[in-house]
């Protein structure tokens, strides 16, 4: 597959552009970004703050969490106390610590999966739009068929075949979700492929890789970035749903979906502890959606 070559240059190239041309510009990229952020609506600002908090929690989980991820520190289902802020889970592990480590596992896995989905779907979408004709038809029909089965159902079928492991989970969700990325990247890049500068690059004898990454990709970045946010939410929710069903991220790793499942019985006693991991999932997806909503408005130049 051609996923590796075009996925990497996306960010380094952006950084390179910013470094290479600072002189003629009045404001640097960061200053512009900062100005835009200050003018962003409240919902987007809150969303960004929430996302940053999650990232900090995930990255510095071992420093922040009061107890290790998998250590039995108390008895089963202890109530909330000073010692265990949110009590303990069904085995006696500290709930707060597992919530914090869950940020790292759940978000990390969803993020890797989304990146993989974009690498596959994005590069195939670009290829289909550049090559056209036979290759485009074949890829398009294959994607149509894959999309004819609901994603969660298809994932369940495949998981029953290959068994539930982390690698299987990531690859299956990434491949299935890449169909949606393929559709979008093919559609937006179709508008760019017909432009004169692409024709010029072709006549110049540039290779396929160059045309994909240097000519087309920079011009379709805004919709792809917005889609990345939406796809991340979707992947995140799908993986959480699978974990909740006991078929996603496997114990003993702390993961929000499985934590809801493991502690669900507490609900029947009026204890809201199982809602905490579910709420953590909900809060992050809402935050990402708010930011994407604003970003879409910004880049599409007032769509409605």
């Amino acid at each position: 597959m051609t996923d590796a070559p075009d996925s990497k240059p996306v960010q380094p190239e952006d950084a390179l552009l910013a470094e290479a041309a600072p002189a003629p510009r009045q404001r640097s990229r960061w200053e512009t970004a900062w100005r835009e952020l200050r003018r962003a609506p409240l919902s987007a600002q809150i969303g960004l703050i929430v996302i940053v908090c999650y990232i900090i929690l995930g990255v510095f989980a071992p420093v922040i969490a009061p107890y290790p991820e998998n250590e039995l520190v108390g008895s089963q289902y202890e109530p909330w106390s000073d010692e265990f802020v949110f009590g303990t889970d069904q085995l006696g592990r500290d709930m707060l610590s597992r919530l914090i480590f869950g940020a790292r596992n759940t978000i990390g896995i969803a993020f890797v999966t989304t990146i993989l989905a974009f690498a596959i779907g994005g590069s195939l979408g670009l290829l289909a739009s550049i090559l056209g004709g036979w290759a485009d038809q074949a890829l398009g029909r294959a994607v149509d068929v894959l999309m004819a089965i609901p994603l969660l159902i298809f994932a369940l079928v495949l998981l029953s075949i290959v068994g539930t492991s982390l690698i299987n989970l990531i690859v299956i969700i990434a491949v299935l979700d890449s169909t949606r990325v393929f559709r979008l990247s093919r559609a937006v890049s179709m508008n760019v492929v017909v432009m004169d500068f692409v024709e010029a690059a072709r006549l110049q004898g540039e290779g396929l890789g160059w045309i994909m990454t240097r000519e087309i990709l920079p011009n379709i970045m805004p919709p792809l970035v917005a889609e990345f946010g939406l796809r991340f939410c979707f992947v995140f929710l799908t993986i959480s749903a699978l974990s909740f069903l006991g078929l996603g991220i496997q114990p003993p790793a702390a993961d929000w979906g499985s934590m809801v499942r493991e502690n669900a019985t507490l609900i029947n006693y009026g204890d809201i502890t199982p809602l905490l991991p579910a709420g953590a999932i909900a809060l992050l997806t809402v935050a990402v959606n708010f930011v994407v909503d604003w970003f879409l408005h910004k880049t599409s130049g007032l769509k409605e």
Partner: protein
Amino acid sequence: MNAVLRTVLQRLGLGVLTLFVVSIIIFSTIEMLPGDFAKAILGQSATPETVAAFQREIGLDRSAPVRYLEWIGGVLQGDFGNSFASAGALGGGQERSVLSLVAPRLANTLFLAAMAAIIAVPLALALGMLAALYRNSVFDRIVNLTTLTSISVPEFFVAYILMLFLAVKFPIFYSLASVSADTPFMERVVRCALPAMTLVLVIVAHMMRMTRAAIINLLASPYIEMSRLKGLSPSRIIYHHALPNAWAPIANVIALNLAYLIVGVVVVEVVFVYPGIGQLMVDAVSRRDIPVVQACALIFAIAYILLNLLADIASIVTNPRLLHPR
């Protein structure tokens, strides 16, 4: 009328083709099984003879196309084969046909989905149209923000919150939706209240956002502006100009969201321990009971494809441009 008929037939043909290809995909997943699969199902203590017998029973000694024809022939007659769960006791255990597992649960799932759809569709359409007509008002903004929030939360979050408040703190409904074949209708409705409510909340948000977008899109088109400029009354604009063109997008929105119900139903059934096909599938996946998984997946896929087909056909037969050809 001829053009309509031809387009509908074309679309139907495409639908049948998709069903065919999807059935091949679902069938061929069994080809991807690792070689030691029989051992995994039968347990480590299985003798080579039992493994061979099991492989013969699932037909691994014949070629794939032959098995596909047998399988699909059986499926068309309502025979999905036998569950692997019985294969563990190949010697004397009694066989359970997949159909006997699936049939009663399919009825339960259809009941739950129908209940959710009957409430959700009119509610979502009404809210969506109101939000579109009073665009940018406070009502619209509040609705926009709440629906954006509720489409981004996981189904089980909504489900447990409803359970916490409506079944535990204020015991109005049952927290577990246990029904059996002889549960009377009204009792069944009450027991299904919470799962149905969860599904309604989840799809109403999706559906009304899409309705709003479709109506706004429509009201922005030049011929609506024209009719406004020539001074027609709002009701005449809506009924005479907008509505005939709105059926297609609305039908699309409904079908797409009913298809979305399929995914929601899996999680919701597990939360409320509802004996439906979604829960059956999840159990079968963790037991790696492939025939049951295939049957469930095929049923979900057929429902999904049919709904999309219906949406397309509805938009074809209500398309004024096709109905009144020049």
